[in-house]
């Protein structure tokens, strides 16, 4: 009797120790990869227990982003848009045809606040180079009438442009995230990726009930965030931020940022410092964040968000922020420097 009780106790203790070992080592495995793509940084965390599978998923993401860049870049001599801008017409790939059609549609729906036919103006400012500079006012004036999305003609896969150049800067990373999603969704493995700050989260985060995405603190260094969004997408969710703290230069004691208003030709000047958009598509997340930054916080911007089933966080230079209803529960402030702006639509 005594012997069997001792054996039972030993067994129970061994079971307990077994669970302790399993429990303490029970952290979700993931593979974290980083590379350069589209002139910025591509990073991804892929969550399966099989490292080889994670590598395969990253390889698919990486290839999709690089292929998107080969279609959308206006600086790579081998890219389709570069050739289109140079020659005025091309027989385009199905991918480029589809992305341009979608982009034109999104730009039109947003009242052309964001416009992909802005290429000549962005070249004038040199934001695609390492040495951007303030152009002459007369040169900017000259370019304004030439910004016209109607001058992009799509006939099947034949694409032609007239007097304009295409710059996908405002939508390109979102389009590449869409391509990455299409490339890996069949694997059904949860992952989160960032391409130059445009984020795609897919599936359920195995480490918790949601993905946690920091929103950069515009007043602090690049890795700082003032709030987090806790998102639990049923499928995929895209998050994009436009901020006037990115790609800046200072000339004659004035700092200029890269978000150009296609209607004035100059960097947008309003009370906003950043806009973050959460959307079911990469292109719309990117386009909305730029368009809303340009348009400001008003009824029109909120209607635009609704029409794309998207939500947003507006951050102002005076360290106030406004969050749309659908994100209120997901947003958690991590800095006490920021105050909520009680914006009333009416």
């Amino acid at each position, binding site marked *: 009797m005594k012997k069997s009780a001792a054996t039972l106790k030993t067994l129970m203790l061994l079971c307990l120790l077994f669970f*302790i070992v399993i429990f*303490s080592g029970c952290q979700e495995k993931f593979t974290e990869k980083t590379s350069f793509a589209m002139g910025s940084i591509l990073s991804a965390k892929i969550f399966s227990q099989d490292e080889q599978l994670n590598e395969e998923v990253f390889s698919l993401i990486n290839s999709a982003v690089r292929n998107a860049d080969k279609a959308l870049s206006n600086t790579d001599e081998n890219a389709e848009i570069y050739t289109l801008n140079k020659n005025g017409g091309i027989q385009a790939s199905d991918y480029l045809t589809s992305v341009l059609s979608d982009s034109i549609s999104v730009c039109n729906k947003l009242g052309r606040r964001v416009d992909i036919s802005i290429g000549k103006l962005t070249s004038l400012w040199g934001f695609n180079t390492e040495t951007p500079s303030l152009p002459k006012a007369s040169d900017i004036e000259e370019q304004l009438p030439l910004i016209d999305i109607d001058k992009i003609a799509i006939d099947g896969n034949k694409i032609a442009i007239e007097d304009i150049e295409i710059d996908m800067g405002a939508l390109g990373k979102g389009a590449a995230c869409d391509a990455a999603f299409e490339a890996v969704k069949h694997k059904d493995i949860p992952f989160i990726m960032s391409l130059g700050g445009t984020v795609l989260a897919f599936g359920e985060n195995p480490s918790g009930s949601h993905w946690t995405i920091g929103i950069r603190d515009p007043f602090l260094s690049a890795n700082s965030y003032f709030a987090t969004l806790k998102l639990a997408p049923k499928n995929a969710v895209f998050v994009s931020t436009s901020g006037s703290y990115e790609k800046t230069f200072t000339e004659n004691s004035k700092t200029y940022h890269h978000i150009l208003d296609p209607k004035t030709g100059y960097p947008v000047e309003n009370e906003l410092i950043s806009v973050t958009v959460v959307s079911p598509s990469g292109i719309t997340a990117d386009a909305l964040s730029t368009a809303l930054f340009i348009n400001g916080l008003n009824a029109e911007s909120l209607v635009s968000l609704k029409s794309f089933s998207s939500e947003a966080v507006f951050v102002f230079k005076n360290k106030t922020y406004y969050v749309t209803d659908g994100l209120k529960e997901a947003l958690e402030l991590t800095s006490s420097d920021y105050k909520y702006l009680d914006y009333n639509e009416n």
Partner: protein
Amino acid sequence: MKIKDFFKKNDIIIIFAAILAACLLLLFSKNSSEASAQIIADGETLYNINLSDVYNTYTVTLNNGVEIEISHGQISFISSDCMGLDCVNCGKLSKPGDIAVCIPNKTIIKLTGRSSKAPDTVTY
């Protein structure tokens, strides 16, 4: 047989000690934010440094001319020939998930490790 007859005092001490050890292990693993720094240039990982093991501040100069300062728990770009100096302006990295990039020189400093507080990524 009653439970108190089955378990002796020593058994109960062992069980409580094991449960306590499990709780401590779990707490430690959740709150640990010990960071390792990876320095990657041209897609190749050149250094993997456990920053908590660094006690003296030193500088590494890469073949591309980029200079990186490493100290206890911190790492940063301190010099680069790129125009915007975005990499240097990133300041000191200290938390898992922090990243600084010199795009013209294709150099990345990335802090890995687990931290219960760090977000999965940051949108900017």
